[in-house]
């Protein structure tokens, strides 16, 4: 399911269409929102750096954590941001969001800490978070700095809409998100929201502005009014380890696709089983007859057997004159295109 989300962000927007926008929302009962945000961020970054996405750059707007945190996070995922500073830039709304430090420095009452204002090729400090217009201009300017003008697009990641709403009104934040979505050069945009920090209307507004909503919910709901109960404590503890991932996609054909995943991580056994699955048409290339996987069991299990039923044999190098299907997977993480819909070009 996370792959579907990342794929949609990777594929970006069609001409004349608003950019796909993802809201990741969680609450204290299932506080995994940042993990999902970090996963999507690293996936999209790797797509961008590999040249596999519509967007050619990424602007990370940092409100709740410092830019260096994200650079470290991406580095730990194997993404070398320093050498790829031409693809990823951060807008630092964390260090001095209201410009207080600057003002204090000017009056001589404050010595700026060197590591916070360290010169970084990937970080730009923004000091006026109350003005969404200026923030919008800064994001667009950074993005254009990454990809140039013209028709090349960039993506935007906002680590905390909650922080934005501390400083600016809902309508101005909505205006910023809406303008970014409708900007010709924005390919995709995603943001994180802690829904229990706001009134329901705020969540409704952000969902309205999104084309995908990924919500994290607790697996087990503790009973109301019995907070002190030991059983509830263990439920809460359990909810801190596992959660329910619930995604709603607004499709181009006007329908809504709902997906629910009951565990946020694959277990070790599930990972092994997934790795053992051989997709149809995968080129084996060892000169021996290939058995097309019929979907029931992996090749490793059936190596020494001749399964009856739907399997067929295909000759390889001896029959090079005939056509053959060679299938290259984009990545090991990518599932077969099961959610491709012929109606996707139906644009209501």
């Amino acid at each position, binding site marked *: 399911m996370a792959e579907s989300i990342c794929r949609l962000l990777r594929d970006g927007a069609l001409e004349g269409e608003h950019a796909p926008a993802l809201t990741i929302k969680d609450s204290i009962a299932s506080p995994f929102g940042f993990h999902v945000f970090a996963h999507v961020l690293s996936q999209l970054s790797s797509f961008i750096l590999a040249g596999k996405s519509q967007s050619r750059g990424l602007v990370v707007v940092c409100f709740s954590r410092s830019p260096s945190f994200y650079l470290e996070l991406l580095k730990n995922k194997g993404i070398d941001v320093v050498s790829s500073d031409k693809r990823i830039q951060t807008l630092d709304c964390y260090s001095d969001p209201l410009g207080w430090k600057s003002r204090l420095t000017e009056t001589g009452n404050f010595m700026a800490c060197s590591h916070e204002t360290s010169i970084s090729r990937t970080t730009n400090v923004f000091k006026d978070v109350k003005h969404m217009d200026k923030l919008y201009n800064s994001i667009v300017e950074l993005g254009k700095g990454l990809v140039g003008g013209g028709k090349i697009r960039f993506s935007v990641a906002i680590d905390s809409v909650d922080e934005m709403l501390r400083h600016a*009104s*809902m*309508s*101005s934040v*909505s*205006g910023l*998100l*809406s*303008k970014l979505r*409708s900007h010709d050069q924005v390919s995709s945009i995603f943001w994180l929201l802690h829904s229990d920090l706001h009134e329901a*209307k705020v969540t*409704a*507004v952000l*969902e*309205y*502005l999104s084309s995908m909503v990924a919500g994290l919910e607790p697996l087990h709901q503790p009973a109301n009014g019995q907070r002190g109960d030991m059983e509830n404590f263990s439920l809460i503890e359990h909810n801190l380890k596992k959660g329910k991932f619930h995604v*709603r*996609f*607004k*499709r181009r*054909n*006007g*329908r*809504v*696709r*709902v997906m629910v995943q009951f565990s946020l991580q694959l277990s070790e056994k599930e990972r092994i089983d997934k790795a053992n699955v051989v997709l149809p048409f995968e080129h084996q290339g060892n000169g021996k007859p290939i058995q097309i996987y019929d979907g029931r069991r992996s090749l490793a299990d059936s190596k020494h057997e001749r399964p009856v039923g739907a399997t067929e044999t295909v000759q390889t190098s001896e029959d090079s004159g005939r056509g053959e299907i060679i299938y290259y997977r984009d990545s090991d993480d990518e599932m077969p295109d099961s959610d491709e819909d012929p*109606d996707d070009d*139906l644009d*209501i």
Partner: protein
Amino acid sequence: MVMEDAEAPHHMLLLRNFMAQGLVHNQPLLYASPARDPRGFLGTLPSPAASKDNKSYETDPDQSKNLQEKGLRIAWQYKKYFGENQLNFDGQKGSLSLDGKHEYSNEFDLRKPLDRHFLNRQHVDCVSIQDSPDLSVLRDRCSTFSSQFPRNDGSVSCAGRIAIQSFCAPQCAYSNMEWDMLSFIRSLKSMVRSSNSVAIITFPPSLLSPSFCKRWQHMADTLLSVKAIPDEDKDLAQLLTGYQEMVGFLNVHKVARINTQVPVILEATTFSIKLQKRRYLVLECLNQAPVDGSSGTSYGTSGSCSGSSKAGNLDF
């Protein structure tokens, strides 16, 4: 007024139809939306569907088995104000067929954009409501527009259409001014009542507080709502005939009854929104898929002729 579903853009289909119909009838149009450049939306308005023989714009009678926006036809009752001799259409550009019949409700081809000459006329006006700090600009524009069609005794020479999309969209600066928005709707109603114009406002009810949502619904003469349909829903697919073609639902909550006490009793209030051949917007009564005949229960409502998988004693 049309209550939007935040998860689907079906209200845009209705707006496109309303606006295109007006332009085809040579009726002035005022369009307001939260977009930066509302004029861009005009490029997506559909063209009237060409008939099979290319001689007239009459709809194919075989296609009239569906309700064809029946709910909207009830709402747009302006047609009874037009006299037979009032219309002056160019037979090639307008919707008047060669034998003199008036087409009040065209079928539109969503895949074919409306001819540019409809949009280049002087009487198409667009307003962006995104950056307005309050509603005074929009109110003035609507007032100026509707004053072009004063209501006199006698027949109507020309009518105007006002289309306001996503009125309480969150990016609009006035979107938290609930009383002001309600007051605007009341003003608009009075403008429309005292002129020969009609107005359609779409809004997402989930973005309003419940009490104001109720107030807005009360203000509407005709009230519709659109709803998204879940994708790949096996239960719905079994329950509804033609689920594969459906993109959503339309509900008729209220129909305008002005200067009369006689209520409208509709045959149905819930319609499926379908895109026939992915180009024609079609509203159909919901048809329940046939129940297994062997159990003795009856088949679904009107129009469905699909057979059941098992033949039973009551099959016909």
